[in-house]
Structure formats: C-alpha cells, structure tokens
C-alpha cells in the first residue's frame, strides 16, 4: 500500500548545503472564541501564502504591473531601490504614501512597504493606508539604534531581516510574523544572503540536537528568548516563514537560496536594474517553483540579457 509511486516523494536537491527542514511553519490559529482580527494566526498566515513565491521591489505603478504580470506573489513599494539608495547616500525614509496607494490600487497582489527600524509612526501611517505587510528594514536609515518597533501593537503584519538565529528570534519576540535574511541589498551579490541563511540553518540544526538544559545556556549565548528557541528546536525550523533577501540577481541565485532551505525570495534591485526586467522577473519566479529541477533552471536562465552590475564587498 505504501509502494513508492512515480513523482513521490519530490526529488531531493543534491548539494552540500541541502537541508531537509520541514517546510511547515506551525499553525497559529488562536483556536476559539469569537471573530478576531489581526491575530498572530492571520498575520503569519499571509506569509504562509507567499511561500514558494518572489516578492519584487518596485518604484512605480508601471513596474508593479510588470511584476504582477511576471508572477510576483507580492510587491515591495519604495521610492528608490536599494542600489540607488546606496549610490545616492543621504537619509533613506518611508516612501510617499500617495505613491504607495497608487501601487495598491494598480495591482491585485499584496503590497508591502518599508519603514525605518524603530520608526513606529511610519508604521502607523502605512497601516492606516492599508498596506498588506510592513518591512522594518535595515535598507532605510535606522530611526532608533536601540529599539525595534513593538510589532504586537499593530494589526498589520511585519517582516524583519536577520543575520543569525538569535536576531531572527528577537524580531519574532517583538512580533515579527515573517523573517528574511538581511543579505547585502543593492549589490547583486548573493554572498551575504548565503552567509546569513547558512548561519541560521546551522544554528537551527545545532539547537535541534540539544537537550532542554543546553537550550537555556544557548539562549543566553545567542541572546534569544528561551521559549522561541525551544520551539525552534522542536520544529527544526524557524517558527515563522523565512525568505531570502539581499543580493539575489539571477534565477540560479534564487534556486540556491531555496535549496539552502528558504521558503521564498525577495528580489530588490536585481530585476529593474537589469536588461529585460519582465523576462528576468518571470525567470526568477519559475526558478523558485522549480528550484530542484536543473533542466528547467537551465531553460529559464537562457538569454536573459544583462544581469545587474554587481558590487563586490
């Protein structure tokens, strides 16, 4: 009755970095009572719906429409892509709400927007205009060097960047319903995203093999809340959805991050700073779905024109 059947289980990727983390972030339903808005269940639930998808940075309605047509599962509305923020310097802030509202009107997919780290008033503004997700982002200039936003106070869900497990769990403790690697935005260089993803996965594998008394000590070491670290140990993955971000420029980069165990990818400057943006966007979307299929990856990687000019670090 359980004889293997063709196509099952799905082929496992072959690569040194392969992790077989269960891809299921836990259900978070509050499990009873009357109707409830903005519970952690529905906040983290939207992130579940984005899995296996690509979230693209867009700076205007035209780019948002291109992203939607190319199969983006969400767009990140911002005034300047990270590559331009790096080039221009100065203080980078939340984008003009009018521009974000135009993008919300132009597309049917979810729209995210960025606020500065710790700038809870920018977050209140974005929540009031109805964005679907807020990115409390290190790409903008921080507004508070000590404190992040208390994200439990909002109905709108938040995504935050992390470089290691301790940082990811601190953000979740503050109410983040979705984690991404920080990577190095605006460079077209995937090396930092790989470093952060590998660090997080390796720390998860480490804590998954620990006994409870060891987890207390490890929680102190990586400055992570004990209960979240214990849950991570039990789940053998982050307790929320985990995307790759920061430097992804090609379909191969996107598939690499998926094989490293990420649930999906953000592509920032990589698309609209390249030659044929629509074609590249569509190729990266396909690469994230078929990340384990090198033949499809070869097909979609062909004739994409010039990738964004990368920066070395």
């Amino acid at each position, binding site marked *: 009755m359980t004889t293997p*059947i063709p196509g099952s289980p799905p082929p496992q990727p072959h690569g040194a970095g392969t992790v077989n983390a269960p891809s299921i972030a836990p259900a978070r*339903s509050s499990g009873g009572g009357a109707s409830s808005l903005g519970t952690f269940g529905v906040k983290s639930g939207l992130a*579940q*719906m984005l899995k296996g*998808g690509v979230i693209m940075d867009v700076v205007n309605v035209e780019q948002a429409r291109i992203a939607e*047509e190319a199969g983006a599962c969400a767009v990140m509305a911002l005034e300047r892509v990270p590559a331009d923020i790096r080039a221009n310097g100065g203080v980078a802030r939340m984008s003009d709400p009018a521009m974000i509202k135009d993008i*919300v009107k132009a597309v049917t997919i*979810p729209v995210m927007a960025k606020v500065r780290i710790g700038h809870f008033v920018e977050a209140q503004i974005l929540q009031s205009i109805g964005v679907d997700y807020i990115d409390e982002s290190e790409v903008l200039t921080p507004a508070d060097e000590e404190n992040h936003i208390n994200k439990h106070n909002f109905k709108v869900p938040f995504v935050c960047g992390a470089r290691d497990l301790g940082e990811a769990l601190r953000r979740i403790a503050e109410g983040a319903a979705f984690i991404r690697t920080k990577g190095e935005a605006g460079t077209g260089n995937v090396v930092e995203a790989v470093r952060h993803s590998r660090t997080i996965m390796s720390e998860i594998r480490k804590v998954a093999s620990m006994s409870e008394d060891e987890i207390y000590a490890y929680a102190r070491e990586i400055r992570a809340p004990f209960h979240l670290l214990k849950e991570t140990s039990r789940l053998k993955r982050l307790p929320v959805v985990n995307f790759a971000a920061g430097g992804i420029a090609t379909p191969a980069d996107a598939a690499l991050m998926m094989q490293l165990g990420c649930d999906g990818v953000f592509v920032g400057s990589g698309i609209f700073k390249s030659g044929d943006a629509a074609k590249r966007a*569509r190729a990266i979307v396909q690469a994230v779905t078929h990340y384990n299929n090198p033949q499809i990856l070869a097909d979609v990687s062909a004739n994409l024109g010039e990738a964004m000019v990368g920066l070395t670090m």
Partner: protein
Amino acid sequence: MAIQVTIGILALQGAFAEHQAAVHRLSLTIRPVAILVRTPEELAICDGLIIPGGESTTIALLARLSGLLDPLKEFVKIKPVWGTCAGAILLAQSVIGAKKGGQELLQAISISIARNGWGSQVESFEVPLSVEGMKDSETPFIGVFIRAPVVLELSSSPEDTPIQVLARLPAELLPPALSGLDDSDPKTIVALRQGRHLLTTFHPELTPDDRFHEYFVRHCVLSTI
C-alpha cells in the same frame, strides 16, 4: 491488492506543504498518499487534487509556464478537486477584481467570486464556523480568512450538478461594503460543494483541525473511485 489513493497538491506557489502534512495526518482505512504536483506527469497519477492558498495570479501563470493549464482543465472535468482561497478563485466560473487583462480560470464550479473581497491584510480574521455534514459538527471549525475571496453568486443552471452549501459566515461579519445582507445571501457562503468538487474561501490547512481534509478524501475522492 490494497487500493492506493494519491492526492496531488498543486505545488507551484503558496501553502502546499501544510496541505500535504494534513493529508498525511489522516487516519483512514485507506491511507491517502499526498504528492506535490509541479508537472503534467505528476498530475497524471493523481486521484484527486488540492489547489492551495497562495496568489492566484502567480499560480495561474506558473501553471501555464509549466504546461499544466490544459492538463488541469481536463483533470477538473473528470476528477475531484478542492480549492482553498486562491485555489477557490481558480475553480470558479468567473472572477471579479482580477488583475488588468484578466486571469485564467479552471471553471470547475459554477459560481462567480470576488478576489480579495474583504480588503487588505489588515482585514484578515479568524472565526468559528459551523459546517454541515462534517464529523463532530457540534465542534466549530476555525476558519482562517486571509485576504479571502467572496462568493458573489451561484450561477448553476438546472442541468448542472446542484451546489450544496457547507458553511456560511454570519452576515454581521461580512466586510462593511457588503453590510445589510441577510444570512441567506450567497456572499455569506464560505464553503460549498458541487458534485466531486469542494471549495473553501478560508484556510483549513493553517489549523491543526484536519476534518476538511478528511471530508475531501472521504466524500469527494474515495466515494468516486
């Protein structure tokens, strides 16, 4: 020889892993095997299919690019399919609020549906539902609604298989734009069945309660093979 039942989970984008885990948790006498479907070959071995939540435009585009759109249209004509949220949109006959240029649909269930009928993510919510024909029906099922679609009308003609409403939302929980409706309005419908097809506008895969998965496998799949 034991009967092998294969439930495909369309795994192009979205919350497919949760559905696979839920099907594997079921304890039925015939244990279904859930496989992830990304190619026409994988679809061909399935006895039933679940189309998960995700972004319906993304799933439809990836289906076309993967050569799955026509095989899916053929599949829904002969085999049972369950769509949750984005999957429900893909199963509908027509959709309001699609992206500019429209959206490809599988047109398996004769309803029209509105995309993201409740507004933005801020309007997502969870609510206990009473579901007709469900095991332990006195225990409510927690419906998690995330940018959920709204059923606009049942468009079945007399020669179609009749539509059976399985669950409704109380009218006072409808979005403000739809207020003032009575409880029997089609817009209150959140779960329905037409013949072998099942549709939910919410996400049973995000709760640990597997009764909808059991319902689909038992009443839509096993009863038809």
